[in-house]
């Protein structure tokens, strides 16, 4: 099976970067296993394949990593792809921002938007995915603002505790995968 990171960076077998990645063979293998477990799991549980790809495409869109974005968006039906692109356009911002627990770090508090899905987006995406997107925006741009009520919003939208663990891993894994792709692409351009 094609290694997704290799494929997105364009790492050819026998290249310098291929040899470097081969020195961390377990990390390479299990980054791919993480992808497979999230997008081609043995059991989907409460998070459907479209929901998984929609969240991934949204995360990639928020990061502005064009190849990763295209990769996940290609797995979605056109109407969903269009709806996600419209939300990404209003959701992109700078990060990380957010608040610290009150105390000496409060001087570093950096306020920023709590983003909401548009009305049109909510119609196109539905309640569950809309709640997941709002949580995703927080995780991507201001994760230190997370709180128990953020999770309650997901439960209220119909996600289970198990589903929330999967969604949290999905957004967090993408935050890793996109940076590896971006970082290795820069490194490759200097070799």
């Amino acid at each position, binding site marked *: 099976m094609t290694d997704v990171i290799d494929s997105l960076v364009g790492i050819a077998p026998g290249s310098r970067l291929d040899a470097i990645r081969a020195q*961390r063979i377990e990390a390479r293998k299990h980054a791919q296993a993480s992808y497979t477990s999230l997008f081609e799991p043995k059991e989907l549980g409460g998070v459907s394949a479209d929901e998984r790809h929609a969240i991934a495409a949204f995360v990639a869109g928020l990061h502005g990593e064009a190849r990763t974005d295209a990769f996940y968006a290609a797995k979605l039906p056109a109407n969903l792809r269009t709806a996600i692109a419209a939300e990404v356009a209003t959701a992109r911002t700078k990060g990380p921002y957010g608040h610290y627990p009150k105390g000496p770090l409060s001087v570093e508090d950096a306020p920023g938007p709590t983003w909401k899905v548009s009305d049109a987006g909510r119609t196109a995406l539905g309640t569950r995915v809309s709640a997941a997107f709002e949580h995703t925006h927080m995780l991507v741009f201001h994760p230190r603002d997370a709180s128990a009520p953020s999770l309650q919003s997901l439960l209220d939208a119909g996600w289970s505790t198990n589903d929330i663990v999967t969604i949290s891993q999905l957004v967090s894994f993408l935050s890793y995968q996109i940076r590896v792709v971006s970082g290795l692409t*820069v490194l490759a351009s200097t070799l």
Partner: protein
Amino acid sequence: MSTDKTLTPPPHTEPVVFTRDMLDWLPWLEPMAEADMTEHHIRSLVDAARVKSPYFRLLARDPDVLEARTRTDKDIFYNPEAGLPRAERELAAAATSRLNGCIYCASVHARFAATYSKRVDDVQRLLDEGVDAKLDERWEAIVAASVALTALPMTFGKEHVERLRTVGLDDAAIADLIGAASFFNWANRLMLSLGVPATQAK
């Protein structure tokens, strides 16, 4: 279902500064009960001792992802072959956690960075002053690269790679730095969003 609710952590003191002290972590969602864990769940912990950790028992609700995450983590940080010295992989993890604001993750990896480098004062200055702290040229280049990979929009570019080469990192070490900083963008988001750190009773 009874587990589909948020938890109110027991009375605790939340740390209000970045610290190298040992911290606890209290979940906002119900971890799996040990008694409910199958062999598959236990295997996903990789280290059997992690069954005592509420964080890992919560993540065990999606066991295949947890196992793959953990094995990725271990190779990025523990593989001793070539690349970036362990102390500086930990420095990248601590700097990433400092910027994202994960007090728990920063505490763990600042301890490791201090232990492996013996540069306790520099590590503490990173925690106290943040990612612009004065360190030395090599550490400042590593912190700056971690920041450029972590902040959005990402600004990591050729100039960061050149600066890392100037301070002595080879290609394998730069790839390790990319792995370590990127991985903590994964870890920070789980730790920050699924529960809260707490100071330990002294």
